[in-house]
């Protein structure tokens, strides 16, 4: 252990003294405050905060990722190429200890820099309202929609299998099935239609959603929604009457102990909007109903909610603890990259290893897209795909799925379970596998160059 620590300390010294870390540190130290001053967003306080956090966090995460890749690769390859490893590895240190030491050094350096810069970002964010002398309205908006961590409840897609099967049989009986179209395609068409029907509210119709275990911490909760319309009205705006309250009341008409929310709003279509609802409408048992009515006297078009078009948000934790978890998400990513860098360095030279890691890094940043395109492209070679490439691609960490800005900007709760999931998949499984590979390769390779 002492020898691992000796190598780790040496790695940190190296990163600091060859000035790689220093350059990145200065870059961040200059850019973060500049960002704090220059970002304006949509001129509101909330907009400013969102833009700043989004840019600052992404920038920090990106630069630290680059730093991690460079330092972890350089500290191993330079030892091999400049041959300091001759005198190190002949000391009583096993090869895996050498690699572990390098890794530990890089991770320790990352933790230090991460703590430093997230503290800077946090401070700037917290003091921004005072700095720009925001008005009270803006402050309230920012407190409700930014300085919070809101849990989100979404509506699951309704199961329509039975309806689709019935409809299919009916069409089949009538002989109205289109020719030249496969059974699967007809079924998927029918499913889409049926699901759309469940999300659509014709003029004068009502849609009802139910939510369980709603436990808001603050005074209000929010309905976040997006309208789609069959025909866009002239001013691109539609009316909607919103209800919220005890589910029992809506479904069975039982007497409700809690008040019922009932208001009419006018909003533009195809944009996300939020309406604030007092938390007292939530019944004690947490079984909440939200209903939408397409009022016939105000609208003349059918309103459709897209699949991700409706959710209920409520404050579940503070901004600070959410921010800390966001930083931990970044740390998971850095640990993976450090392991990856060490793996690449264990058998590749510096430039090749850098290239290799960058490819993995950028692919992982768009992992959702990559995964989808692969599964789409490989439809016809299903067996080959699922036994070969699929496993390799599954090894790719999903940086985009665990992207902290995605949560912080709309003030979404990063739950501990999400963080744990990220830690388990990205660090405990993927990074660990990568590390094991690198230890095996490094333990069996020849350290010295061939010189005759």
């Amino acid at each position, binding site marked *: 252990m002492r020898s691992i620590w*000796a190598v780790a*300390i040496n790695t940190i*010294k190296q990163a600091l003294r060859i000035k790689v870390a220093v350059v990145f540190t200065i870059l961040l130290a200059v850019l973060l405050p500049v960002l704090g001053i220059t970002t304006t967003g949509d001129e509101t306080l909330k907009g400013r905060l969102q833009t700043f956090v989004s840019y600052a966090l992404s920038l920090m995460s990106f630069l630290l990722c680059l730093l991690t890749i460079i330092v972890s690769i350089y500290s191993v390859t330079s030892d091999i190429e400049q041959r*300091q*490893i*001759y*005198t190190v590895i*002949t000391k009583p240190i096993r090869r895996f200890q050498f690699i572990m030491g390098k890794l530990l050094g890089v991770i320790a350096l990352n933790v230090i820099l991460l703590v430093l810069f997230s503290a800077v970002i946090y401070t700037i964010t917290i003091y921004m309202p005072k700095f720009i002398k925001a008005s009270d309205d803006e402050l309230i908006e920012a407190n409700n929609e930014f300085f919070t961590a809101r849990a989100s409840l979404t509506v699951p897609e309704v199961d329509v299998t039975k309806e689709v099967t019935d409809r299919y049989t009916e069409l089949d009986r009538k002989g109205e099935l289109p020719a030249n179209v496969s059974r699967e395609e007809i079924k998927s068409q029918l499913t889409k239609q049926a699901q759309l029907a469940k999300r659509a509210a014709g003029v004068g119709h009502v849609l009802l959603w139910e939510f369980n275990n709603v436990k808001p911490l603050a005074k209000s909760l929010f309905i976040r929604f997006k309208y789609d319309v069959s025909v866009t009205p002239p001013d691109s705006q539609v009316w909607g009457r919103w209800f919220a309250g005890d589910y029992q009341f809506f479904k069975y008409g039982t007497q409700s102990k809690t008040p019922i929310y009932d208001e009419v709003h006018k909003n533009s279509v195809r944009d996300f909007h939020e309406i604030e609802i007092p938390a007292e409408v939530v019944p004690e048992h947490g079984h909440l109903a939200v209903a939408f009515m397409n009022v016939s006297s105000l609208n003349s078009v059918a309103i459709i909610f897209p699949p991700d078009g409706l959710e209920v948000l409520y404050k579940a934790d503070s901004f600070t603890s959410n921010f800390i978890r966001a930083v931990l998400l970044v740390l998971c990513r850095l640990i993976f990259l450090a392991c990856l860098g060490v793996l690449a360095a264990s058998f590749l030279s510096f430039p090749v290893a850098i290239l290799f890691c960058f490819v993995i890094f950028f692919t992982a940043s768009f992992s959702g897209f990559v995964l989808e395109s692969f599964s789409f492209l490989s439809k016809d070679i299903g067996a080959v795909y699922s036994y070969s490439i699929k496993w390799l691609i599954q090894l790719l960490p999903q940086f985009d799925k665990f992207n902290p800005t995605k949560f912080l900007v709309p003030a979404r709760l990063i739950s501990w379970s999400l963080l744990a999931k990220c830690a388990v998949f990205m660090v405990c499984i993927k990074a660990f596998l990568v590390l094991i590979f690198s230890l095996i390769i490094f333990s069996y390779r020849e350290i*010295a160059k061939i010189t005759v």
Partner: protein
Amino acid sequence: MEYAIETFSLTKIFSDWWGRTKVYAVDNLDLQIRPNEVFGLLGPNGSGKTTTLKMLLGLLHPTKGKALLLGGEGSDPKINCRIGFLPEESYLYRYLNARETLDFYGRLFGLPPKVRKMRIEALLDMVGLKAVANRAVGTFSKGMARRIGLAQALINDPDLLILDEPTTGLDPIGTRQIKDLVLKLAERGKTILLCSHLLADVEDVCDRIAILYGGKIQTQGHVRELLQQTNKRQITTDAISDTAVEKIKQIVHDENAECEVTSPMDKLETFFIRTVTAAQQLAQPTSGAVSTTKLGDFLTQHEAVESILDKLVSAPISKQASGEIPATEKVAAAESASPKADEQLLSKLTSSVAPSESKAVTREEKIKTEPVESQTRRQEQVREDILDKLIGGSKDKTEKPQAGDSGDA
């Protein structure tokens, strides 16, 4: 008897990308080095010396055969604890300073802080870099880096010291110091494997040598046996009168032999050291390495440190060291001292150190059996041309470091 280093038909073949054999870098090498022996591995450039060392230390995997160091594998940490290694160039972390460098290596051995600190200071003193201990190693000249490299190899008080070209880049005083150190360590019961093509260095310190060419041992044996001209005699006297010389000439003439009378020349090395020592005594400023007389201090202080700390820290290294020192010293004391030619100079230089005995003589007596009879028989014909090649090949090398290093001192 257990050998300090033993190889069994050690072979290294370098192949190209397709796996086709390109070069036999080391070819069926059987090497036996006894404990407490100073062994010189000689050979022209590319003869497989360094490759052999790398295989011994586990930096390269042998294609065939195996090598044992102190009875174990060279990659085993337990064995590594007892080995000091100086590679052909001092590969150091350029951004660390001299003290940090030694501290880093000390930590790798898990030396307790107190021992580490004492050894570092003693070693810095010994290699004459105390004054520049806080300067980054990257700014050191080659000779100074070499000194740190040497200090690094000694930080664990190794039982087996493997030195690859230890004197390249060093000024003559540094060279002399390394040679004295090697002798001193041998006296303390250490085994030393020296790889070099600087023949003068090898000749001065080694008990036995092997000459490699094309990855094979061409000849090996005791230095004195290999080099002694049995058909000639040399007489050295104080300044005597011409008439006495005439008398001697007459006697020699009566024996039907030829005789030549000259005044012996100082070696250039001796002259150089004398000049620099004089300058040092006048305390002329230098930014380079300082040649100290503290060679023995490291070793003596070392023992003191260890005897105190033995009780506190039962590190395996110190146990072995304290176990072996008294034994070897007894042997050395019992044997009659027969000073070498350079001995007077050495004792002047390292006044704090007792003159080291010529181990070559004493240890030859201890070790009787010699398994290289067959090679010594054909050595006469082989040696001539190999040595010619050796000298021809290494000429530039021997001149270069001295020229380049004049800036150090």
